């Protein structure tokens, strides 16, 4: 297993994306497929921008590369997300105007992270912070699943929270 960890500074837009681009490069150098590295890069980039735009004191991105999966955890200690379902709605954004004018804040950040993850979860408490977990099942390229495979994946997804030792009840804040 290989681990990458990045500390992200809040408001530092100029630096935004450096950690994620570096992550993608290192994943590729470490033998991760272009397809998987790209998905991980996208998840990390959106997580990185979320920390820059929204977090009060910055946060961390931790990436664990396993033989079968890439696990990405993005964590901060505030302000927290009030309504997670709303935050996951494409187009919904609470980004401040300065971020929107720089081309961020289209309300696609969390949906993009979710779309590029095979398993995805957010835990958040107002005043305590947010933790986003993404797991990417490694594969060489885009796949189309059969109905049976899709059902199996959906079942695996439902069990995923307990696999990771996450308490599902904590999801709602």
């Amino acid at each position, binding site marked *: 297993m290989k681990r990458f960890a990045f500390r992200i500074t809040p408001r530092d837009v100029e630096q935004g994306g450096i950690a994620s681009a570096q992550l993608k*490069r290192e994943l590729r150098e470490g033998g991760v497929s*272009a397809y998987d590295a790209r998905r991980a890069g996208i998840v990390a980039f959106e997580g990185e921008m979320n920390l820059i735009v929204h977090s009060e004191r910055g946060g961390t991105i931790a990436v664990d590369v396993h033989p079968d999966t890439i696990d990405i955890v993005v964590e901060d200690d505030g302000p927290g997300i009030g309504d997670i379902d709303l935050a996951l709605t494409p187009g919904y954004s609470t980004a401040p105007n300065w971020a929107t004018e720089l081309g961020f804040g289209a309300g696609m950040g969390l949906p993009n992270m979710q779309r590029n993850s095979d398993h995805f979860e957010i835990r958040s408490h107002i005043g305590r912070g947010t933790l986003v977990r993404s797991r990417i099942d490694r594969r060489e390229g885009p796949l189309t699943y059969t109905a049976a495979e899709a059902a199996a994946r959906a079942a695996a997804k439902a069990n995923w929270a307990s696999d990771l030792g996450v308490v599902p009840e904590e999801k709602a804040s």
Partner: protein
Amino acid sequence: MYMADVATLVEADILAGAGRTDLLIDRAYAVDLLSDVLALTDERTTLITGNISPQVIRVAEILNVIAVIFVRGKRPTPATVARAEQLNIPLMSTKKTMFETCGLLYANGVRPCKNRPVESME
């Protein structure tokens, strides 16, 4: 279309990748919002944008974007251009608007890249 023809068509200056004018530009995506770029799922796409923030190149690197055309006369900083050279990602800059640039490329056979095919696992 080849990059050289694109540059002629939209009267663009080639800022980076001057040695790669035989690059085939056949698909494009136009946007200013970077989060929307990150929703792209197609490889080998040229990006048309008015966004010159350094993140554009980082996003291009993560997504394997093959070239970037900056519109509205926008030019990124020399540091961004240097980074693009390192990454071998050609950059162009045109004074034309995004509307005009897209209209001309579309009329000359450049096609949209696929976007968000809702990764078929749901």
